[in-house]
């Protein structure tokens, strides 16, 4: 079962491309100390604003720091916040969405109205306010990003549990006298796992995008630690003379987010080939 899933995923061209992009970015983040050719913070006035070349593949920035090394180190912050925020968002989204789908009725109604309210708040706005006021620590940022992204996840999980609830194995569990927690956890959420995994991949892209927007506004990792968003800001002032400073970190965000989106699409199709091309 697992092997065939992998085969289907790799046979899915876009999914495989996404998996590759994600793997490269993850490797860069994990292995940053080993693979980055230079330090991310060592400044060199003689090496300022060097265009991409043999010594510095992606050029150097206004302080003479190697852009490639900073892009590699920058992946850490983005991925850490992305994974933490996604995990939090999925836990909340699955629990609430699952409960809504399973219990139905008033609980469903109440939970989904709250989700609607969260969906109608401009997310970046809210995140900006909370992070600016409470400080841009890893946990703060991840928490508040999770706060604005759990609602779509809850919606998807609810839909899935609503459908699963009527299936025979779920009915059988009820007939056998299983408790709510057991039915919801073992029978519904476990079977909704494919949907949740797909959602995780798409959410990762989204949370990384929000994080990069925050760090563009100056609320990400604090210098000299690089984050992709603040590298783009620094590059903005050199746009006319040194385009590479802003271009490459942005490209890294794009490739990572695109990778997670493609991977998510590939996973969805691999889990359920019947859905291929319908959405």
């Amino acid at each position, binding site marked *: 079962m697992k092997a065939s899933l992998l085969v289907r995923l790799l046979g899915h061209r876009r999914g495989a491309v996404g998996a590759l992009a994600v793997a490269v970015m993850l490797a860069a983040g994990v292995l940053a100390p080993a693979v980055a050719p230079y330090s991310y913070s060592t400044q060199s006035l003689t090496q300022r604003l060097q265009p991409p070349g043999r010594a510095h593949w992606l050029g150097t920035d206004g302080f003479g720091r190697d852009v490639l090394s900073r892009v590699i180190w920058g992946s850490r912050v983005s991925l850490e916040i992305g994974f933490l925020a996604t995990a939090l968002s999925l836990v909340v989204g699955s629990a609430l969405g699952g409960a809504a789908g399973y219990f139905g009725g008033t609980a469903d109604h109440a939970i989904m109205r709250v989700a609607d*309210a969260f*969906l*109608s*708040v*401009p*997310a*970046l*706005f809210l995140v*900006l*306010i*909370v992070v*600016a*006021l*409470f*400080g841009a620590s890893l946990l703060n940022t991840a928490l508040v990003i999770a706060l604005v992204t759990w609602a779509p996840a809850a919606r998807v999980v609810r839909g899935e549990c609503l459908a699963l609830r009527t299936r025979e194995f779920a009915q059988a569990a009820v007939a056998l006298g299983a408790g709510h927690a057991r039915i919801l956890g073992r029978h519904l959420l476990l079977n909704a796992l494919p949907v949740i995994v797909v959602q995780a991949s798409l959410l990762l*892209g*989204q949370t990384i*995008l929000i994080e*990069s*927007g925050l760090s*563009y*506004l*100056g609320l990400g990792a604090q210098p000299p630690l690089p984050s992709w*968003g603040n590298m*783009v800001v620094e*590059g*903005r002032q050199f*746009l*006319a003379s040194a*385009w590479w400073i*802003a*271009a490459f970190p*942005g490209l890294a*965000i*794009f490739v990572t*987010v*695109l990778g997670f*989106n*493609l991977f998510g*699409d590939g996973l969805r199709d691999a889990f359920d080939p019947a859905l291929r*091309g*319908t*959405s």
Partner: protein
Amino acid sequence: MGGLRSYVLKRLGFAALMLVGVSMILFAIMRVAPGGPEAVLVGGEFSAEAAARIRQRLGLDRPLALQYATWAAAAVRGDLGRSFKTGDPVATLIADRLGPTLQLTGGALLFAVAVAVPLGVLAAVRRGTAWDTLGSAVSLFGVSFPSFWLGIMLILLFSEALPWLPPSGLAEYGREGDVLSRVRHAVLPTLTLGLIQMAAVMRFTRSSLLEALRQDYVRTARAKGLADGRVVWRHALRNALIPVVTVIGLSLPTLVGGAVLTETVFAWPGIGRLAVGAVFERDYPVIMGVNLVVAVVVVTANLLTDLAYTVIDPRISYR
């Protein structure tokens, strides 16, 4: 008609409740956050007495509930207080910047719909062809592009490499009345925000039209010999547009969020930039005011979206 009226009233009541809830939460968040506006207002070192004096002047020493009640009572009358920093009335600050933001978001939405709906239709009708591939590429890129970076790359291309368009601002200084100058300045920011917004609209148009094309009435229309174009545009698309309208409504919050970044990139004098500045300076009345106005706009737009259903599909009635 009576059903519609009570529906609208009910929705308005709900919306008002939500506005109260959101503003209360926000009010509380700002007051429990560490550090206050006094640190920003004074700057550098200051004594505890100086801080207390400032807090007293700004009314921050009073009980939280009383502060909120005072703010809310004034807000209902259209008085949003005065900026801690400049002393200007918040309502005026917002009114001055609402126009540019509405121009930017409205233009971006128009652009997105004008391109995404036809593209979505083509992708669905010519499923599996190059149009379909183009469509899915557009929607995928749209959800994967950091909008601020897209903006900067457009500046790099169309302002730096090719000196065609201005990179920032609403118009040249002193030429705000010049329509041509305004349009030239609006192109890049509108494009940036619009391209990002296109993705969702295009994806929903496609999947919803695919769904509609499978319906019986489409087969009937085809069976009675109607031309393909007529079947798609008159029969299927009209039914497929309902989810599309929903998506446009649902994407408004993202549109506003995107405007915050786009306005920052292009130095666009809208409420997004006003809000970013206010957040960093802890200008509580401005933050509250901007959020209230944004919430009112989003809630109103959502209500209008729901009412638009009745125009597209006369079978839908609200009660």
